[in-house]
């Protein structure tokens, strides 16, 4: 208020100057402030009821689009799931047709193999049974000076050659086998693909495209390369020494010569379909003392304990061999 104001005082019958104390001024401001807030609230309520702020408009737009897209995606998802179900059925049928066995759920779909604890006993399992056996036997011999059918000298030589032996004995997969998907029929009784009877399958089959590299699974010497249209087809025999030989059959081509020395991992030939074979695959055998043994126990350099168990599972399911 620009001009000084007076108030009539009825008691003193005079005009008193209106002095506004600080308190009074403050009170007025407060009253004014609160007043405006109340009004502000009222305005805002009215405004908000009838209008949306730009931010709200944007949010509404956001919600609308998110909802539309979500419904769209959800509908598509349902369609996709139907397609996936059909694909699953087809996959299973193809598996049954080609392998004559019930399909095993892939680790991917199962979300990992079971607990690790089951395989504790296989952990730290670095050496083959034979090496442990031989080492044990050698200890016995040294302590008891027990002469067996094989000469004593022979066995001492074996002990000294242990390093060499570890490199020579088959210990890896003969072809690359990521996630074990190429593992087909295993060792033992299998349905013969042509004869339709249960027959003894002397090795392991790995499916692979024609021309896939085949590796020597241990150091050794190529002792036989044969081309043939029947039986094992084109096949290689490697002598690893230590009474082990390995056979690689149905090859399309060779990469070595007879007499050649090979190291574990060398490419010796390529997958094919020669001989009595119904599809491109590698037939792999291991012989100990001339007798066929189950190759599944001879991949310890390549497989983890869990993979080993899984491979046994895949290979042992009664199914059709490819030769």
């Amino acid at each position, binding site marked *: 208020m620009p001009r000084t104001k007076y108030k009539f005082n009825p008691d003193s019958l005079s005009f008193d100057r209106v002095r506004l104390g600080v308190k009074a001024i403050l009170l007025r401001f407060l009253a004014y402030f609160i007043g405006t807030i109340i009004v502000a609230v009222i305005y805002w309520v009215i405004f908000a009821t009838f209008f949306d702020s730009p931010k709200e408009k944007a949010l509404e737009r956001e*919600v609308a689009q*998110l909802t539309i897209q979500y419904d769209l995606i959800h509908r598509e998802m349902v369609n996709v799931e139907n397609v996936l179900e059909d694909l699953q059925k087809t996959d299973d049928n193809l598996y049954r047709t080609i392998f004559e066995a019930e399909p095993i759920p892939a680790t991917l779909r199962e979300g990992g193999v079971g607990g690790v604890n089951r395989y504790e006993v296989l952990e730290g399992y670095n050496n083959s049974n034979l090496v442990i056996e031989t080492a044990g036997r050698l200890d016995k011999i040294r302590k008891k000076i027990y002469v067996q059918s094989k000469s004593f000298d022979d066995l001492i030589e074996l002990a000294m050659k242990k390093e060499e032996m570890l490199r020579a004995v088959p210990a890896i997969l003969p072809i690359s086998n990521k996630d074990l998907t190429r593992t087909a029929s295993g060792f033992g009784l299998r349905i013969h693909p042509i*004869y339709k009877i249960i027959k003894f399958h002397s090795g392991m089959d790995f499916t692979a495209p*024609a021309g896939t590299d085949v590796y020597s699974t241990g150091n050794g010497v190529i002792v036989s390369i044969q081309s043939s249209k029947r039986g094992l087809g084109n096949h290689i025999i490697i002598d690893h020494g230590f009474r082990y030989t390995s056979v690689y059959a149905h090859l399309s081509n060779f990469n070595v010569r007879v007499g050649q020395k090979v190291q574990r991992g060398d490419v010796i030939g390529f997958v094919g379909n020669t001989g009595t074979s119904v599809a491109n695959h590698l037939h792999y055998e291991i012989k100990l003392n001339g007798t066929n043994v189950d190759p599944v126990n001879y991949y310890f350099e390549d497989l983890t304990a869990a993979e080993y168990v899984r491979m046994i599972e895949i290979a042992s399911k009664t199914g059709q061999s490819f030769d």
Partner: protein
Amino acid sequence: MRNRKYVLDLADVQYKLVILHWKVKLLRLILWFSVSVLMAVFYGTVFENLFGSPKKRMLSQQVENLKLQYSLIGRQLDNSMVCLNSFRLSDDIRYRPVLDMDAIPESYRHAGFGGVDRFRDLRGYVNSDLLISFRSKIEEIKNLANVQDESFKTITERSAEWKREMDHQPMISPVSVEFRLGDGYRFREIHPVYGTPRMHYGQDFSVPYGTDIYATGDGKVIESGWNSNGFGNYIVIDHGYGLHSTYGHLSDIKVVKGMNVKRGDLIALSGSTGTSSGPHLHYQINQFGEHKNPINFFNNDMSVEEYNEMIQALGSISKFR
């Protein structure tokens, strides 16, 4: 009365009542109103920026809820991808190599992406990234699923063909393995009957008169009866794929021309008819007219029991085919 104010008019030296003109009062009111509106806007803006209006908060909550739903469906999408990957693995590594089929190129599986900005309508939102990523994910999955579906169909067709070919190719011995092999596919200096040098295009099996002869693969009988070129009573089966198998010097023929046979079917009894020096089966394989060595079309890998078991097994299977 208490609120009446007075002003000292120095000119008149009198206290005069302050009476406000109605215009002034109106002006004051308008002023107060405008200021309060301004204050309201000020407070409102400050408040909204600090707390947000209830409507805004509700909408924001809706957005959060939707984002949650998206993350849930996101997990389903990831699962689908995992499934598709495992089908793709089976496709590339298990099935195609066995069936001698080339793998589908990676570029074909992912065809149809990129190019014009297909997500234009999803731009300009706070959550545009989310919308676009989900949209493109579901489109990718749809596309991959379609490609896989197509691929599996092709593979299924081919696998049926593969089985058919396997069933049709001559792959077993036409007689039980208890019998010995006779003369083979070779040039004979002295023919056992003619005495002259002649190429022997077949594999002989030394079987006694009246031995069971079996079809070595599925096929159709195209010749059956007397052959005037020395085969005597003979049968020719067309297996398809250019392959023909011939069975000569038979005594008793059990099939007729035009008949369809399956591997393991009894087609004849052996004999010594035609140009034959003794009871035996003459077995021949021709592919696209060319003579082939029959020894490459069967193995010596089973016992007599297994052979008999096989004939039984083949016979029981053929009933279902």
